[in-house]
């Protein structure tokens, strides 16, 4: 049971300088970060960009929800008898030079806002999300490596991400697009004629796809080739398994959306008839192409999150994850089945036989997902559970993701999906899994690894209050939407019949609480960076290799190549790095042997 005392070498060795320390003046630091191939700096830059774009997409969502409090509608007095209010960009009247504000422009603004929300969140936040930030930072550290397999490729990935995001922001700055993030044809090929912003948004997604592919490729090779001596596949932390399964999907699935988006641009610009029936094309073909990627991509979104949760639960219960191999194989299984269920997004437009086949296959993917949830809860059994902020978020994850997963069942079931498809029920379902799943897991991971990343502590009290606000706000916002959906409220509606108004109002007020929770987290993070206490090297007593590095890690991560001496969750066998044996009571060795041998 070796613990690596990296800190004892002293600061005279420049390799021990934390990666965050600047190398000279302001300009030198900027150049250093702009040209770095250090996975940690790239991870921090990704994290900053992702959180900033999350804030922008979140503001768009708050605007959407605010408009739905009391949408524009005309009353019995005719077109001038307008009720409600909303954000309305209006339309320039070329003849008079005045701006017209009508129901059409109000709805159009709404449509652009919800498209902006979806496009930013999916393409720029959640898909890169955990892999680009926490994955980049911790994959090499967890494997005991100095960096990823292709550090310069990693830098390229970052700049491709920046370029794609700039295209997206450009499209939004030009007043945005109103196609929905799904770009269904023929609407997306025929709307907004004479403007280029739809093309820019499509190209943004196309470019961002390459960032995803290159990162995925990098991670696959890293996991195969850069593990520390002694680390077999089943000695890796489960976060690595999550990242690995994600990377495989990214490499295989993303090219399909790339081609699809390119074809979409050709159709718009050159009027090639692939998807538009007026040119001889088939709109449902587009849906098949689109969802062939966009279904696997939701597993790209959730698998890293599940990896985070596995590690957080294990560490904060000081217990090996129950069913390690089951979770590892379930991750790969989910990645595999992800590719054969895309049709469940199209039950209302696909052939009957196709729908039946896809419904059956979709149930298949529910099984490894459910097994993981059982494993996590079983890990808590006979654990030593500390209700730290990461653990609170992991419990919130279990709660919200369970609801998200269970509400997927009526959507996989054909008889009920024909009612619920394209309703608020679906909106609630995917927010529970993407937001209540991935984003909550990101928060869990951030609070878990923050001391390691930045060497600073954060205010536990205010972080926990933030967690409470997020949890309450989230449920009020989105649980209400299940009821709206079953009662007939369609999605992407700028206004609605009166009977839905109370639900919308409850949902909107919930979203304000949710926003407040995130704002509080932002303040906690900023305060931590500016005025936080110095963090301990291994505050949680974790056993995986990243905790052997200093907090924050030095430029090359480790002073010496770490050698693996124990499994990632052997809390009953090993004293964690930076902990004294006297502070880490171990159970009776014979007892440990007996229990391990009996299974």
């Amino acid at each position: 049971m070796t613990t690596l005392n990296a800190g004892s070498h002293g600061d005279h060795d420049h390799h021990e300088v934390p990666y965050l320390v600047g190398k000279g003046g302001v300009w030198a630091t900027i150049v250093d970060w702009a040209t770095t191939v250090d996975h940690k700096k790239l991870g921090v830059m990704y994290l900053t960009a992702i959180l900033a774009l999350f804030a922008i997409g979140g503001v768009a969502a708050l605007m959407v929800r605010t408009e739905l409090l009391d949408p524009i509608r005309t009353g019995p007095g005719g077109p001038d008898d307008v009720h409600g209010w909303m954000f309305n960009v209006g339309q320039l009247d070329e003849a008079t030079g005045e701006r017209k504000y009508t129901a059409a422009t109000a709805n159009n603004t709404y449509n652009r806002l919800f498209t902006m929300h979806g496009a930013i969140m999916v393409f720029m936040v959640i898909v890169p999300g955990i892999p680009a930030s926490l994955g980049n930072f911790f994959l090499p550290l967890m494997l005991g490596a100095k960096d990823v397999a292709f550090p310069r490729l990693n830098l390229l990935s970052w700049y491709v991400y920046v370029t794609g995001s700039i295209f997206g922001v450009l499209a939004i700055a030009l007043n945005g697009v109103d196609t929905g993030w799904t770009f269904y044809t023929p609407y997306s090929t025929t709307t907004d004629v004479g403007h280029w912003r739809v093309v820019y948004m499509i190209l943004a997604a196309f470019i961002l796809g390459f960032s995803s592919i290159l990162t995925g490729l990098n991670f696959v090779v890293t996991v195969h080739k850069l593990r520390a001596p002694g680390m077999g596949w089943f000695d890796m932390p489960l976060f690595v398994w999550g990242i690995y399964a994600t990377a495989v999907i990214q490499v295989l699935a993303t090219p399909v959306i790339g081609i699809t988006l390119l074809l979409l641009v050709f159709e718009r610009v050159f009027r090639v008839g692939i998807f538009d029936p007026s040119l001889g094309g088939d709109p449902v073909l587009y849906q098949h192409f689109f969802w062939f990627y966009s279904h696997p991509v939701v597993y790209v979104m959730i698998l890293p999150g599940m990896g985070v949760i596995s590690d957080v639960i294990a560490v904060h219960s000081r217990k090996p994850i129950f069913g390690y191999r089951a979770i590892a194989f379930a991750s790969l299984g989910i990645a595999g089945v992800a590719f054969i269920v895309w049709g469940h997004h199209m039950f209302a437009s696909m052939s009957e036989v196709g729908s039946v086949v896809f419904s059956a296959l979709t149930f298949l993917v529910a099984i490894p997902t459910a097994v993981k949830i059982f494993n996590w809860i079983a890990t808590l059994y006979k654990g030593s559970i500390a209700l730290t902020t990461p653990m609170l978020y992991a419990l919130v994850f279990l709660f919200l993701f369970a609801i998200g997963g269970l509400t997927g069942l009526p959507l996989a079931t054909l008889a009920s999906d024909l009612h619920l498809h394209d309703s608020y029920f679906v909106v609630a379902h995917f927010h529970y899994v993407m937001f209540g799943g991935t984003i909550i897991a990101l928060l869990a991971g951030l609070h878990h690894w923050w001391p390691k990343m930045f060497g600073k502590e954060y205010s536990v009290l205010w972080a926990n209050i933030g967690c409470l606000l997020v949890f309450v706000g989230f449920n009020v916002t989105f649980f209400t939407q299940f009821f709206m959906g079953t009662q007939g409220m369609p999605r992407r509606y700028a206004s609605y019949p009166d009977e839905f108004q109370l639900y919308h109002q409850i949902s909107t007020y919930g979203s304000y609480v949710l926003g407040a929770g995130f704002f509080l987290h932002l303040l906690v993070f900023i305060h931590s960076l500016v005025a936080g206490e110095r963090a301990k090297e291994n505050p949680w007593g974790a056993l995986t290799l990243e905790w052997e590095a200093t907090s924050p890690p030095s430029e090359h991560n480790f002073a010496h190549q770490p050698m693996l001496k124990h499994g990632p969750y052997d809390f009953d066998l090993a004293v964690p790095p930076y902990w004294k044996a006297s502070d880490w009571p171990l159970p009776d060795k014979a007892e440990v042997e007996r229990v391990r041998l009996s299974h």
Partner: protein
Amino acid sequence: MNIMQVNNTLVLADNDAVASWPLHDWWYLGKGGASYSHWSDWAFMGILYLSIAWFVVLMGLMFYFVVKYRRVEGKPAPVSAAHNSKLEVAWTVIPTLMLVVMFIVGFKGYAEMMVPRTDGMEIDVVAQKWSWTFNYRDGNSSTENLPANELSSQSVPIYYVPESTAVRLKMISKDVMHSFWVPDFRTKIDVMPNRYTTYWFDTAKVPSDAKKLRFPPIEVRGEEPKPNVFAALDGVPYVDHWVFCAEYCGDFHSEMVAVIRVLPKDKYDWWAANASSALPLDQQGQKLYLNNCATCHSIKEGQKLTGPSWYDLYGAKNHALEDGVVDVDDNYIRESILNPGKRYAKGYKGVVMTSFAGSLDERKINAIIAYMKTLSKHATKEGESGKPADKPAESK
């Protein structure tokens, strides 16, 4: 049972009479209006109860463990096994069996929803941005609209269907993807521009204590209010079902709404026989305006919406265009309906209007022209602006 292939959908020939069934009513699902609707509701409720049970068990265990196994500083976690083959197999196999049952229930309900009855009636439905048009096979279309304040927006067409009848809708879109959703029936189907899709439902008997129809007098500009030609339907019970568009299609996606109104059989038959002859041409035109044009064209003075206002438009001389002027006569109106991109009114350059070629036939165009005359001071009693109708519209 005979199974035939019609338009690539399987059609069951079944001679059972349509029974009346009680309208299901879950407070969070709403009334279930078709015979197959209960499949959706039972599937949903079954899964819901199962989910609640699983959720309570899982969260219960989670909270219980978190409390019972709270960390005690200085004490290690008790030693326990890190896997248990029997348990893991059990919790894989048992949920799998439950999912198989769910799939089967879903499949059976789906078959009921997708395979239409062969008896009953068929209606052709056209979807376009942003309206639903039902073209009855006997030539009728909607003769009534929801007043604007019911949806708090544009007028919503009401389409009558008889009770206790199987109805098949053969649907096509004129432009982009739409989706026909009747929440009360619990099904939807996408409506596409390149091929027909079929949506079917069977209506229940109208309960005698249902709401009753009212037919108020009709306003015509410049004249006394006229008594309603549908006074024969006054006091008749009915049941309404919302139709929503469920595939995003642009600015007025949320207002692309219709109502299916179920009437007692004899009253429906009266309406079908009398509908088209009942209304004078300009009132037919007003209905067509409400269902097809009102979203973009106002009838109020000077109100510019997506398209120009029709107030005082008919018969206007030297009406301003982007390129030149035109006298607004029958020919110009017909051209604007069938080939709207040919000329643009001033201030509307490049604004795309979907052509109504194919959905508004010559009779309907004339009805709209008749209605436009009632909105304009330039129209004389005979309706002509002084120019022979068969001379093409000129731009000067």
